[in-house]
């Protein structure tokens, strides 16, 4: 593990409460505008993800949005598929599909559903939405790279509630066994799930130690600090011959003050014009 990284060691009190920069606010506004099409979506879980996805697609991943199946691309799976509003925002921003598709979110004639589907959405590597599937599929990608002697890398973004699924830990054991240094797990650790806080519902701690025990190199980082995320991600694998786990401390609903850490905004339906306007105003910064 590099000692030069700006990372936090504790799992609490490690999230920047500072202002978001313009790009982060714009991507969130894209999400809010997307919501007009369906008036529903997993808002909190998408807002906590923005900086993770932004840094991956701006600075880390190798891809060609005009050739989404390019064999040499890095693979990125959003295993917590309910955060797809954030993924759609970044994929549209990068030109994987026209931004006009966002206006058809969850519509009968659109390609963007409430969970992302492989084969329908350019840039989506696997259909997710039922929790606990993405890491195993990512292991398949990573093993394939090893078989083919290809140098692409695989990144899998997990949710914290998702990591209560046993299949995640089956997969973690497997990735550790195979020493998949071409595989990186990013956990969007916003510490809230549908019913309550993860501490209340099913505590995950000690989380970094769990990943280490399963054979990963694990670090913790402020998941809204773009510089810190970039620093960590540009150094993976953190240890030779080990997969990497990056625990990203985030805030559910980050960026919209009244939605932050507010369980009513985990999934919201029948979102009104007033609420949309209030979110856009909050994102003016």
């Amino acid at each position, binding site marked *: 593990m590099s000692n030069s990284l700006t990372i936090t060691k504790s799992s609490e009190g490690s999230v920047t409460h500072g202002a978001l920069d313009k790009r982060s606010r714009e991507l969130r506004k894209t999400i809010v505008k997307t919501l007009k099409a369906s008036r529903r979506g997993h808002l909190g879980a998408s807002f906590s993800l923005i900086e993770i996805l932004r840094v991956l697609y701006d600075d880390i991943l190798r891809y060609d949005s005009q050739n989404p199946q390019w064999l040499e691309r890095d693979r990125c799976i959003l295993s917590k598929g309910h955060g797809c509003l954030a993924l759609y925002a970044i994929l549209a921003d990068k030109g994987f599909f026209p931004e006009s598709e966002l206006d058809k979110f969850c519509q009968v004639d659109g390609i963007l559903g409430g969970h992302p589907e492989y084969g329908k959405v350019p840039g989506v590597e696997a259909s997710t939405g039922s929790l606990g599937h*993405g890491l*195993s*599929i990512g*292991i*398949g990608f990573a093993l*394939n790279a090893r078989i083919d002697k290809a140098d692409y890398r695989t990144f899998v973004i997990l949710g914290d509630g998702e990591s209560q699924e046993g*299949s995640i830990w*089956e997969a973690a054991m*497997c990735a550790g066994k195979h020493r998949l240094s071409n595989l990186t797990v990013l956990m969007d650790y916003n510490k809230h799930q549908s019913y309550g806080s993860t501490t209340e519902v099913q505590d995950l701690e000690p989380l970094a130690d769990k990943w280490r025990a399963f054979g990963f190199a694990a670090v913790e980082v402020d998941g809204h600090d773009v510089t810190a995320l970039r620093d960590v991600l540009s150094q993976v694998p953190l240890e030779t011959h080990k997969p990497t786990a990056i625990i990203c401390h985030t805030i559910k609903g980050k960026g919209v003050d009244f939605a932050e850490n507010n369980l009513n905004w985990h999934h919201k339906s029948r979102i009104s014009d007033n609420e949309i306007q209030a979110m856009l105003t909050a994102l003016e910064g």
Partner: protein
Amino acid sequence: MRKLCLDMVYELAKEDPRICFIGSDLGFGTLNQFREEMPERFFMEGVNEANIIGMAAGLALEGKVVYVNTIATFITRRCFEQLVLDLGLHNVPVRLIGNGGGLVYAPLGSTHLAIDDIAILRTIPNMSIVAPADEAEMKRLMPLTVDYPGPLYIRLGKGNEPILTTDEVPFAIGQVIPMRQGSDALIITTGVTLQAALEGADELAQQGIAATVLHVPTVKPLPKEILLDYISTIPVVVTIEEHTLMGGLGSAIAELIAEANFSEGKRFKRIGLPDVFPDKYGSQADLMKRYGMTSQQVVAAVTGLRKKQLAFFK
């Protein structure tokens, strides 16, 4: 049947660099040659079926053809959602080789009896299901599995079943294999109950009743048109399978018959496991006998239905 099937995976893998194998804690020494000669494509994983299916889907999404093997109950029930979403929804070429389809593991009890595998896999869009009757048929099937589109479940029998099939009819997935011809009754079966069906037909022949026996190795996609051609011309239809009566081959045929709206004279009966967990151990044959999956029951079903049918037309 299992050893032959796995040996063929090895032979096919030698010829095709896309082929990978994943086992879930299989018996010591399984496919040693594969492991030694093609270690990068051989994976012996732990007891974690959900992860294995996802991993197989990931490899298949990247262009590999993945054969996964473990006991039939574990490869169907434990990881059912992975089969639906990772394999079915992505429509990827993963081949599930299920050891001990049906009552093979009778001495081990209900935890190991794959009595519902066909029923639950039938509900998965894109999933295909094949149940060969013997090793000769397995040998004809396996080369066809390499380029077959989408996920495929291969239901294995116990092994050392008598060789009943021949290569007179070229084998194809999705095909019906006529084994006996007769216009009095139609016996439809899949997998190893072909033996009981044939023995039943022979006994019926001695009574002067000519029965057609159709072996249907592909339960899904069901060859509906060909089946309906046979069913429409024969008044009495009996199905026999080593599977619960709910949702298997018999159910599929019942659906066909019900929707075909035949004249009222059509008579139909399913033979299979009733809606119970078997209450005894013993051998596969013991349980087959206890629950009536035998040639005697085939004969009884056909003669019983014929009486009803004749009475109807009196």
